[in-house]
Structure formats: C-alpha cells, structure tokens
C-alpha cells in the first residue's frame, strides 16, 4: 500500500514537474547557455557509445538473421530485417537505454547532490525555480539531440549489418543487395516512427531522472540511492512506454 502511494506520488510529481517546466519554456533564450551545455552533454558526448553499440547491434542482428534465415532461403531479406528492426525498435530503445544509463544517472546524481547540499533550497530562496534553470533546458536539449542520436544509431547499425553480411561466408549478401532490399521494404515512415519513439523515451527518461533527483531527501547516502532508482525507473519506463507507443504509432 505504501509502495503504491509512493509510485502514485512519483507519477504525480513527475507530471507536476513537466507542467512547471513547460510553463518556463518562454525563458529558454535566457537559459540558452545551459541549454547548449546540456545539448553537449546529452548529444555530443553520448555519440561515441551510441555509435559503437548500434554498430554491434546491427552486426549481431544481421548475423543472427543470416543464421536462422538460411534454412528458409530468405537470406536476401536480411537488409529489410536489419533495417526495419533497427529503425523501428532497436535504434530508439537502445538510444533511450544509453541515455538512461549515461545521462539520466548523471542528471539524477547532480540534482540529488544539489538537493542534499541545499543548493536547490538556495535556488528557491533566490526565487530561481529549479524547474526553470535545471529541468527545462535539459528537456529541450534532449528533444533536440535525441533525433540526431537515433538517426546516427540507425545508420551505423545498418552499415554494421551490411559489413557483416558481406564478410560472413555463410551469409554472403553484397551491400548492394542488402541496401536494395532495405529500400524496397522500408519507408521513411518507419524511420520517423522510430525517431518519434526515441524522442518520447528520451524526454521521459530525462524528466523522470530530474524528478527523482529533485525529490531526494536525506544525506549523501541518498544520492547513490537516487541514481539507482533513476536508472531502474527509466529502464522500466522505456520498455513499458515502448509497448504503448509502438501500439499507438501503428
């Protein structure tokens, strides 16, 4: 019962934070410096790990598909399979999980320590709402940066699959064939679908992590707990949202 109330409290405070942050949107020009800084942290510095991971996810996808499809003589469809899976599902989900692990945890840790060391209280007495200075720029930054990360993840994953397909002896699909089947069986709609998903995931990951950070109570020990909670909640949220968003976008 207590747990349930806590969960409901969490949802409520997250939505409150969302509304409050949205109401501070007009002051974005004033927060432009912070916005750029967050863009840098969320987008630019996350790029390498996104690229590496999506490359290997694309490769593994091609490898597994090649292995299981050779029995059906449907190997030439690997391009379409990798393309669609990356664009519609794995690209967005992977970007969101990386954001949760790399950016969400950092946000939760930073805001939780600010809260524990009374910096948040100081902001409040200075009449600088934390939602305006700390949350809103991050939310806008994630909205701007996630599509970039997601499209790079898609492209790198596709190329990873193409390389594996042409270099693995038992698959042996040339990149030309690979990309031709991908083009034949995909539309931009599929990519856009994935970008929207990534956008939604990224946005909620940052929002939830901000909220958990800001609602930390107690001493320095709580900072670690807040980070753990932020990452766990983010991961659950991503996968639960994934189902509903996918369904809604169909």
């Amino acid at each position: 019962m207590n747990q349930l109330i806590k969960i409901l409290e969490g949802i409520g405070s997250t939505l409150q934070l969302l509304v409050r942050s949205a109401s501070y949107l007009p002051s974005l020009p004033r927060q432009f410096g912070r916005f750029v800084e967050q863009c840098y942290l969320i987008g630019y510095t996350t790029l390498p790990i996104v690229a590496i991971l999506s490359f290997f996810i694309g490769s593994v996808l091609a490898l597994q598909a090649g292995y299981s499809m050779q029995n059906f003589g449907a190997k030439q469809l690997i391009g379409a399979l990798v393309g669609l899976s990356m664009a519609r599902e794995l690209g967005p989900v992977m970007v969101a999980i990386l954001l949760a692990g790399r950016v969400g945890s950092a946000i939760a840790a930073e805001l939780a320590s600010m809260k524990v060391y009374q910096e948040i209280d100081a902001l409040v007495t200075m009449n600088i709402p934390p939602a305006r200075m700390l949350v809103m720029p991050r939310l806008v930054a994630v909205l701007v940066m996630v599509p970039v990360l997601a499209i790079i993840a898609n492209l790198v994953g596709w190329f990873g699959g193409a390389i594996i397909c042409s270099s693995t002896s038992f698959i042996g699909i040339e990149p030309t064939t690979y990309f031709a089947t991908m083009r034949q069986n995909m539309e931009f709609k599929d990519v856009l679908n994935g970008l929207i998903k990534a956008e939604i995931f990224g946005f909620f990951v940052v929002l939830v992590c901000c909220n958990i950070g800001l609602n930390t109570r107690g001493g320095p020990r709580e900072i670690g707990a807040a980070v753990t909670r932020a990452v766990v909640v983010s991961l659950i949220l991503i996968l639960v949202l994934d189902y509903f968003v996918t369904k809604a976008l169909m």
Partner: protein
Amino acid sequence: MNNLQQTARVGLFFLLGLALIWVTFETLNGGKILKDEGYAITAGFESLKELKQGDEVRMAGVRIGEVQSTRLAGRRAEAILRIDPMVTIKSDATASIVTAGLIGTNYIGIDLGTAGVPDLVPREKTRSPRGFFSRILPFLQPEPEPIAEIQTKTAADLNSIMAQIGALGEKLESSLGSLGTAFAGDGKNPGLIQKIDGLVTDNREKLTATMTNIREITDKVNKGEGTLGRLISDPKLHDELVATLNEIKAGATEAKGFIANAQSIIDHVKQGKGAIGTLVFDEKIGDDIRSSVATLRTISDKISRGEGTLGKLLNDDSLFRDTQAIMKKADRALDGFDDTGPITAVGVVYRGLF
C-alpha cells in the same frame, strides 16, 4: 573548452543530424518531398480477385502508380488507382487485373490506348500541389479524390478459358457431323459420292476421249515433248512450279476431301459397277490404260529418285514447312482470345494437348 567552441560543436552536431535524417528520407521516399502528388481514378471490376491496396499500376509494364484503396460500390468492386503526376492515360485505354507471379502478385495493367485520342484526365489536372506542411511531413497529404473512371476489361482467367475450349470442341464435333452427311447423303438428298457416280455415268464417252487424250499426252510427256514433258524433265522450271503450287495449296483442303471419296469410287470400280467399272474392264481401253500406267511408273520412278520438278517437290522439306505454317495459322484462328500473359501460358498448354 570555451563556450563558443561548445556552442559551435553542438550546432554542427545538430546540423549533421538533420542532414542524415534528410538523406535517409530522400533515400527511402525517393524524393517525394519535392514532387507533387498525382491524381486518382477509379476502375470498376466484376471482381478484384486478389488485388489489394498498395499493388502496382503499370502502363505497358512501366510502374505509374499504385492501388490507393479498394471498395465495394453497388454491384461492382472498385479500385481507386493513384497515378503519378504528369502521367496521362488515353481515354480509350483499358485497365485489367494481371497476375504477375506464381504466388499470385497482382497488378493493374493499363494499355497505351490509341494515339491521338484525348487524355482521360487533362494534363494540367494530373498533379495536386502539396501544402507546406505536407511537404515536410508527406503523410499529412490527404489522398487524392478520384476524378475520372477508366474503362476496364476482364482478363480471362483459367476457368473461362477452359469453358471456351469446351464450346469450341462442341462446334467442331457438329461441323464434322454435317461433313459426313454431305459425303454420304441423308436419304432425301444424294451425297457427294452418288453425285460423282452419276457424273461419270452421264459422261461416259467424254471420259473415254479424255483418257485417250491423257494417253497421248503421257506418251508425249514420256518422250519429253510438250510443256509438261519439258517441265518434268527440265529442273529449270522448278521455281515456277513452286510458285504455282503455292497457289494451288489454297485448294488443298478441297482436294483432301476428294481423295477420301476416291477410295469409295475405287470400290465401285472393282465391282465392275457404273461407268468406270466398264471402263476398266473393257480390254481395248485396258491396253491403253496399261501403257499409261507403264508411262506413269517411269515418271514415278523418276520422282522417287528425286529427279525432275515433282520429285524435288516431294523430297523437299519446304512443302512440309509450308504445311506446318498453314497449320499454325489455323491454330491461331481457332483461339480468338487475348494474347496477354497467362493466356499465352494456357495457349501453350492447349497446343500441347491438341
């Protein structure tokens, strides 16, 4: 790192992302963003069979659009075809549902129509311009409303072809039946054979004279005298004869029927009946015939050795080939159906069967 550098990197990163999204978009959507939307026409069919949304529309094999939707309209099924902009269709062009592959991929085939016939949809109406937002997000563009209707024809499927073949067989049978009646007679009217018998009886003297003439001619021929003699002995005239024979070929069918009758005439003759019987068993005439036959034998010997024009003719393949061509033409005359994809296949089957 100073702020300016950071801002620049973020800006560059963002632009890179936009560029990549654009490239992906262009690649996957074939640059639809810059193109205008086409137009839509309806095509009514008795049945759409396996046709479904998204199937291709092809004109003379070139993809010009796709099936936008299918619907039931009253007593017929309608397919709404979205045609690419700037593609015009002649108003006498017809659409039909074509099966392309073994697993039943269907598409709508539209023929080119006749040159000079006005377009079904005037050229200036073949594109509907996109609004600003639908240029950015193409799926916002509403699907075009159909503005014309194309004529359709039902491409025969296997069932109807089989039915046609069955009907053809029936006709063939009945015509053969009447042919038999024509030869044998049906009680009231004399058949062809009775008529010939009567003919020979009435012209007994004339025939005797003819036979005498024939003997004289064959003698001459044997000696190489006269035109026919020269013709048989002289290979130079071969070419002319071939040309003549080609003309004669037209009458070949009638000749065939005649040969069939000949057998029965010979039966009559053996029994000594009628004019010919008398003719054959009269000794004086018999001698004449005997010498004629001897002459004929020498001719036939020549022929079997391949000498002379007629010999070449019989030992030459070209006659066989000509006959074959005539058979093919006849064959084609029989199948009066469409010459499109699946029917050709059926045609092959048909030819194999018969």
